[in-house]
Every structure is written in C-alpha cells, then in structure tokens.
C-alpha cells in the first residue's frame, strides 16, 4: 500500500453573533447609497465575543469534526494550529488544544503563524508528516478572530472580514492520489501591506499608537489596529495568482481541463471574480462561498471546500485546485483529489 496523505473530513465553526449589512450601514450611513459595494458580495459575517479566542473557535470546530464523523480521538497523532492570535506569549497554543480535545499524549502539537495562505501551508506540513515522517492522522486547525483588531471606524475591514475556524482531518489513506504538488511564494518586502504595526516585539504600544489616521479615501485606522492597503493587495493578487496557477499546473503535469473545481482563498467576491475573469475560468469550475461568512482568513478554503462537497459541486475522485494568498505577503497552491 502506498503512503498517501489525503483530506478525509472537514468541519467548521462560526461564532453565533451576526453582523449584518443593515447593522454595518447604521454605523457607516455614508456607504449605504454606494451600489458598487454589492460587488463585494457579502450580506453578513459572524463576529466573536470579546472573551472568545481563536483557540476556542478551533476547539469547537474540532469537536464538530470529531462528533460529526465519529473520529477516534486516540487515532490523532498530530495537531497543527494555524492562527495569528494565540492564547499566550508562551506556551504554544496547540499544546493546550491537545489537552482540551483529550488527544493522546503521544500526539505532536505545533502552532504556525500565517494568515490567508495558512491552510495550504498546513496541508503541506501535514503531507510531509504523513508521507515522510510516518504520522497517520493530522488534525489541521485554522482559526481567526481578526475582527477584534479592527479600528471601530475601519469601514473596509469591517465590511469584508468575518471570524471563524475550520478543522480538517488529513490521513494516510494509501490511495493512488491525495494531496498533490505544491507551489509556495513569499514577498516579505510587502510586509506592511497588511499589518498591525504596534504591539508586537518590533514596535511597542506608545502614545502615538492609538492616534487616528486616514487613507486617501477617508478610511480610518491607527497603528495599534489592523490595516490592509486594499489597492496594493488587489495588485499583488492579480499579479501573483494567475502566475501561481500556471506554475502549479506545470509542476503537477496537469492541463486546465483536468481541474474539476477551483477554490481560491475567499478574500471577497469582487477580487475572486476579477481573478476568474483574468484566468477565464468557467463559472461551473469556480466556487465562491462568501456571502454569509465573509473573509475568515486561513479558514476560507476549508469552509468553502466543506460547502462545495455538501452542494455536490465536487465529488469523490475529482480534483480541486486550492489557491491561497495574502498577508506576509505569502502565497501557496496545491491540488487535492477528493
């Protein structure tokens, strides 16, 4: 039997609190008449409570996965936790998650810090652990509580993002195909395109950290809050994603018609449709699941994959290309066989 890493099951968890467009327009009435905003393709997002942590969302997603699919906890021999908001400076949050989920003490546990590209990177680590190290079942958890970091008057970020977590079981199935080739990319010179500038080791919180700043469109932020430079990220995406797809097809020795479905990081519907038009991907092969979730950072791809399977947009034996890109700047792509 071959050693082959494959995604076996997925589940996800969204916080119960909804933040609808109606509530958004109550805060930003000046945006209400902007009919172009509908191109973003969102109606509501889920938002965490102040005392709810990324690890809490991840544990709930994992419990759902374990219960929905009757997974034996003792069979999990590695847990990976991808987030940008961890419980403590130290220890590693994945260690606490091992205990909270009652996973065996023989289980490895590792945090890694990545944003929108995190899920695909996580799959590459899981594949390496299974196919090179001999691990059998990897629990890959992705979670984001990014909305906690927004300036209350940041009208761009508050529109496009939501919170959530996903749990994915990657196992050695021994099948002919599973998780395929990867391409990776990094451009750290773009580190300040998506950033929370103050509060980490580089810049401590100071008197100027909370001073309000405005961009060219009057959008508000401060150095202790999340900042995304929208037009720079748009350009990064249109330059990077089409190139990455072509590289991945070539590396995988695949033709476009051998991909049954494309699932991109669900940044927002407008960016996705722009990329789709550039790449001329037909609608039936392009999956968008954004309207009621928003951009949940590292969890958008597993959430969309879960929904695509539920909606039977893809079925057993078919091949899906996963394409992730964002903060870092960082990007990665892979193909998976369902």
């Amino acid at each position, binding site marked *: 039997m071959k050693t082959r890493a494959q995604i076996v099951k997925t589940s996800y968890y969204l916080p119960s609190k909804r933040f609808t467009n109606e509530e958004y327009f109550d805060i930003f009435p000046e945006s209400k008449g902007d009919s172009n905003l509908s191109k973003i393709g969102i109606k509501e997002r889920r938002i965490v409570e102040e005392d709810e942590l990324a690890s809490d969302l991840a544990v709930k997603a994992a419990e759902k996965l374990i219960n929905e699919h009757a997974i034996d906890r003792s069979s999990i021999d590695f847990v990976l936790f991808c987030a940008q908001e961890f419980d403590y400076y130290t220890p590693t949050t994945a260690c606490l998650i091992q205990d909270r989920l009652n996973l065996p003490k023989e289980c490895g546990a590792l945090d890694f810090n990545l944003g929108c590209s995190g899920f695909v990177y996580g799959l590459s680590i899981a594949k390496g652990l299974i196919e090179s190290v001999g691990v059998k079942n990897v629990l890959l958890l992705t979670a984001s509580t990014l909305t906690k970091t927004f300036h209350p008057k940041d009208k*761009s970020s508050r529109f496009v993002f939501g919170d959530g977590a996903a749990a994915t079981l990657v196992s050695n199935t021994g099948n002919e195909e599973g998780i395929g080739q990867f391409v990776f990319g990094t451009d750290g010179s773009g580190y300040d395109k998506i950033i929370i500038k103050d509060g980490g080791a580089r810049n401590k919180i100071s008197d100027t950290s909370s001073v309000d700043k405005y961009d060219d469109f009057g959008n508000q932020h401060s150095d202790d809050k999340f900042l995304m430079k929208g*037009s720079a990220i748009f350009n990064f995406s*249109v330059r990077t994603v089409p190139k990455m797809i072509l590289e991945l097809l070539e590396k995988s020795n695949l033709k476009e018609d051998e991909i049954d479905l494309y699932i991109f990081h669900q940044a927002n519907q407008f960016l996705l449709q722009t990329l789709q038009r550039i790449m001329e991907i037909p609608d039936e092969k392009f999956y968008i699941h954004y309207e009621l979730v928003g951009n949940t950072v590292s969890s958008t791809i597993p959430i969309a994959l879960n929904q695509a399977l539920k909606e039977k947009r893809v079925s057993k034996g078919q091949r899906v290309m996963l394409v992730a890109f964002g903060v870092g700047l960082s990007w990665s792509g892979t193909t998976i066989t369902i």
Partner: protein
Amino acid sequence: MEINEFIQNIENEIAGLESGTLAPDTDYRDIDQWSSMYALIIMAMIVIKYKVTLTGEDLKNTNTVRELFEYVKSKV
C-alpha cells in the same frame, strides 16, 4: 485602443453610472460614486481588458479620464 471604448468600459462596470456621464476631460474622481471601491473597479477593468496593472500611485498621478487612458495606452 480608443478613448470612447475606454469610457464605455468604465461606465459598464460602475453601478449607477449612466452612459454619457464621463467625457474625456471629466475628472473621474469628481463624480458621486467615487470611493475606494470605484478605484478598485477601474483597476480591475483595466487589468482584465488591457492587461495593465495600475498602482494606487498611478491613479493618483492622473486626474481626467483622458490622462488615465493615455497612461494605460502607454503601458499596453
């Protein structure tokens, strides 16, 4: 590449912008719909139709539709 077609392409993409609103010498920021979203829609139209990627700086350096058109034309 022709300016009337360029204008038509912008007007087609921006919701609520009636045909004939923009003229070559219109300052494209000086209309009601102008917002960060509007800027992204123009950038997207230009990359899809003309395969030119504009930066925020490129946009800042142009004011009228004609200036934007000439800039894109020089990059095609």
